[in-house]
């Protein structure tokens, strides 16, 4: 397999943009009409994910170790969709047909051989990872045991799973609600693992968001959810031994609260500063619980901040500015979670303060969205 030839071939095909994944899925559904039911009605986001994953695979095709980690998690993640080995054959056929179609005269036997070899490798790694994962359920059936609206657009709910779902504090699971079939979204677990195995989730209603709307408005005690395997790398680095700074915007609090609970369970917890920001005081939906936690935890300081409510008596302003003012960011491991705009602004802010990039932990959901 010639890695450079493969990259050049992909670069030429990718020039056709959205037409490529469009052709691929149409080809797949024509050959296997039953596969259509595995996907949502609108395929726009799905096509982007496919192209994004393909681009990532091709760019790392000569870095097999690095690529394997990505492919393994992708393979494990696909178990919840009911993906089996035969599906990989079908996808391979359609992928090669798509590449051949868009390559035109460039589709030489050598290029075809490169792609066949590459796809066989990809499929093999994914299938193997899925197989190695078979001791775990493909997905977890969960039942809602409590659900409350903390603000007009924020719901906090607790589920119990039929089988235990092991995870690390700070990780997320993808979620499908029976009322919105085939729409999976990632949500962080908002608590450290408990004895009774229950999981908390914080969901903010996104204007027009397909799943967030259902999870805030339609979910009730007794509702059934499917949870995917835990993913994500925003986990607490206990080995560093340094004090921590946690920056949470809105429901981005969830993974950081799980990490705080984990820190609280340590024999000698490091000092922790949590900045919890929202636009209005109503958006500080979990502040009473956090204040209760800090009252009984001498190692924890909680600083609420509000950006859009003149006259608020506490910290006012955008969260990264409030954090920068506080000087609490020096010589600490930093964890940031919240809306993409906040995370990007925080990364830029810490960079301008001279904080080394490897001390700022953020979640990269880019790869793991199903």
């Amino acid at each position, binding site marked *: 397999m010639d890695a450079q030839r493969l990259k050049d071939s992909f670069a030429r095909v990718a020039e*056709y943009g959205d037409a490529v994944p469009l052709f691929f899925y149409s080809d797949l559904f024509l050959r296997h009409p039953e596969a259509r039911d595995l996907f949502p009605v609108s395929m726009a986001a799905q096509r982007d994910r496919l*192209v994004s994953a393909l*681009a990532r695979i091709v*760019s790392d095709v000569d870095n097999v170790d690095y690529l394997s980690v990505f492919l393994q998690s992708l393979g494990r993640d696909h178990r919840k969709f009911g993906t089996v080995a035969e599906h990989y054959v079908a996808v391979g056929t359609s992928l090669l047909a798509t590449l051949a179609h868009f390559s035109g005269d460039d589709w030489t036997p050598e290029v075809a051989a490169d792609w066949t070899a590459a796809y066989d490798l990809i499929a093999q790694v994914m299938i193997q990872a899925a197989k190695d994962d078979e001791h775990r359920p493909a997905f977890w059936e969960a039942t809602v045991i409590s659900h409350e609206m903390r603000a007009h657009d924020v719901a906090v709910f607790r589920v119990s799973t039929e089988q235990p779902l092991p995870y690390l504090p700070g990780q997320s699971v993808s979620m499908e609600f029976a009322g919105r079939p085939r729409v999976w979204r990632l949500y962080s677990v908002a608590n450290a693992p408990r004895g009774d195995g229950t999981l908390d989730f914080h969901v903010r209603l996104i204007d*027009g968001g397909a799943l967030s709307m259902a999870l805030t408005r339609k979910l009730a005690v007794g509702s059934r959810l499917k949870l995917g395997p835990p993913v994500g790398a925003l986990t607490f680095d206990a080995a560093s031994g340094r004090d921590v700074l946690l920056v949470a915007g809105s429901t981005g609090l969830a993974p950081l609260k799980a990490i705080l609970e984990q820190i609280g369970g340590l024999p000698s917890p490091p000092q922790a500063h949590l900045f919890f920001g929202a636009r209005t005081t109503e958006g500080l939906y979990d502040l009473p619980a956090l204040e209760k936690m800090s009252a009984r935890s001498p190692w924890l300081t909680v600083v609420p901040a509000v950006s859009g409510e003149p006259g608020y008596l506490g910290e006012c302003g955008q969260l990264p500015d409030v954090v920068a003012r506080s000087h609490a960011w020096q010589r600490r491991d930093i964890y940031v979670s919240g809306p993409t705009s906040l995370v990007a602004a925080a990364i830029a802010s810490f960079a301008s303060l001279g904080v080394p990039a490897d001390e700022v932990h953020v979640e990269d959901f880019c790869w793991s969205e199903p």
Partner: protein
Amino acid sequence: MTVSYRRHGPLSPEAVRSTTFAMSRFGRRGCDEEDVRVFCDQVGSELAVLLSEKNSLREEVNRLRKRMNGADGKGGLLTYRPEDGHVQAVQILSRAQQTADRYVADAQQYSHDLAKDARRHRDQVLAEAHSNAKRVLEEVHQRASQAATDALDGPDLPTVSKRQELQAELAYLRTYSDVYRTHLRAYLDALLRNVDEWEKAEKSSVALIRTERPPRPSELDL
């Protein structure tokens, strides 16, 4: 969720529509969020149209190229290969999918706009209620403090020297009222005494008249 700062692959219409930007830092100038979103929406739609157009033009070029090749090689006859049918079917299905995508995107956009409007309205109502409540509170507070000031500065609450002055005046008035009561009582006593004397004098004079002569009716009637 589209993580705008870490992308892989080419930019698609969907990626343009769903891209989010970081807030500019405090004190720096930034663009209006809504303007940016509307513009990204337009760019996304335009891009979708252009890509679709580009695609069909490319198909057209391929078709014409094949026709030319066919004309050169096979005596002007357009020959279809068996896979051409499949490609056509793929293109028909693709167009149907794009239509479905557009409908879903429109519905989502509508729902998004509606929710956003509702949220804005709610914020407005809340802000209004907030400022009303604040105004009422301020008014009440102002009135209360005005009343307190009045009470402090007003004549109803005398200072120590004023009170002493008033007490002195009260004592003076009390003394004088005693004096006047005594005077009045003495005056009334004198008056009563006079009335008694007058009565006594009248009785004795009447008795004297009776002894002299009986009154005539004409005298009595007068």
